[in-house]
């Protein structure tokens, strides 16, 4: 029994590592988003030759500036989709850990009764605590990944109609907030799983 719980704690450590990766990707994605949205907000202004002042004396300047900005926007959108791939890899790794953990309690010689599954020894978590916790974390990240996917594809659509600057602000809010991931809940969960280490 105790051994199984130890194995679960091991899995949680791995999941924690993945969550650290997730945070790094998150700050990367946010800064990419900010850069892309500042270009999108400029697009309308730089498309209007009225706004070129004295630069109007240079033939083709407006086309050239716009082309440069579209180029940068393209490459930012490309790096965002690369970041999304990395997010997906984190989600798959977490899901794989959860899947393997579910096998731990079912498979092999250690077939546990439901009473054993719920048993807590001292400060140690029960097997059910561990399984539910891992599932919860996986669910949060899976849903958050889906949300991010929508945000990123909406951003690409907005690039084509830059009149909707207000939408950019709310999209950014959504991206930064990560509404599907409750850090409080995760924190509480980890306190239960690693209760003995905290004491």
């Amino acid at each position, binding site marked *: 029994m105790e051994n199984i719980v130890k194995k679960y704690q091991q899995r949680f450590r791995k999941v924690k590592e993945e969550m650290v990766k997730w945070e790094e990707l998150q700050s990367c994605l946010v800064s990419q988003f900010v850069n892309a949205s500042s270009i999108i907000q400029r697009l309308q202004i730089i498309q209007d030759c009225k706004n070129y*002042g004295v630069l109007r004396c*240079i033939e083709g*300047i407006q086309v050239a*500036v716009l082309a440069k*900005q579209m180029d*940068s926007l393209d490459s930012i959108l490309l790096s965002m989709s690369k970041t999304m791939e990395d997010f997906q890899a984190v989600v798959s790794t977490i899901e794989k850990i959860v899947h393997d953990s579910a096998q731990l309690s079912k498979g092999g010689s250690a077939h546990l009764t439901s009473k054993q599954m719920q048993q807590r020894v001292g400060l140690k978590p029960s097997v059910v605590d561990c399984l539910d916790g891992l599932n919860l974390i996986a669910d949060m990240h899976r849903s958050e990944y889906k949300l991010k996917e929508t945000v990123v594809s909406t951003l690409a659509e907005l690039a084509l109609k830059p009149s909707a600057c207000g939408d950019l602000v709310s999209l950014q809010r959504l991206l930064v907030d990560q509404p599907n991931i409750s850090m409080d809940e995760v924190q509480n969960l980890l306190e239960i799983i690693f209760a003995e280490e905290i004491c």
Partner: protein
Amino acid sequence: MVPSMDPSHSPLQPSPSPSASPSSTSTNIRIWKPAAQRNLRNQWSKLANLRHKWTASSSSGRSHATSLVNSFLSQRYMDGMELGVLSDMPDIKKKACLKLSKQQANHQNKFLSAYKDMVAVVVQMISVSKSMRCYNKVSASSPLAQFSSSTENENDNGDGGGTPVFKFWSIASFEEMAEEIIQMFTSELTLKRLLVMALVSAGDKKVPQLSELNWSDEFYSGEFSDLGACELLLSSEPIFPSLSGGKTNTDVMQHVYQINREVLQVYLTTWFVEVNIDRYRVDEIFAIVGEEMHVILA
């Protein structure tokens, strides 16, 4: 992309210089090559450094320009600003404007000095591009072969008779590559000059500390001699910016433009996108030149 495949411009082609130069006998070339290789590596690593210096000055110019624009806009919109509890203070808006215009003058100076740095970078780039050749030094007293950066013999082109210096390229091919880079930076420099003029002159004409610039003014003392070194002067006036293949309508430059938030934003955007500099191509040139010379130019 590979350097131009047009056979007449191919870097593989030896330069058409006469083979009668004293450095072209096989012994001489064997001695000349190491010196020429050392020189090319030095010049190209200088060029790579200068490129980074340009980037640094350009981005500091950008941040000073942004501050300049912000203090200008704050002054302009001061009248409409709601100052709440502060509005009871006597002359508060006047004092704030005075302070802002002092700040603006300060940003102007820093902005101009960033521009000055960028001119200096281009001047050095051009001098580097003119120092790629390696000449025999005529010295009767010493039995050792010596080399110099300037010619002492009119038959000596400093290019080893057009022989490949490393694997394939002659000196002329290295010069061609440097020329392509310098072309981009000089064009961008004239565009930056126009932006400096426009942004510096955006200030309130009534404030005495603030300068106003015209195209034919020297933006700092000695600017014209620097621009002359960059071949950017035409009958002692700076040449106008233009995009490759495009024209410049200088009549338009005489107009008085309304300066508003949008125009200033376009100026700042044009400053940092550097339309004349194809970053990918510059990276590529440094990569292929570095490969030819067995060094990494970063």
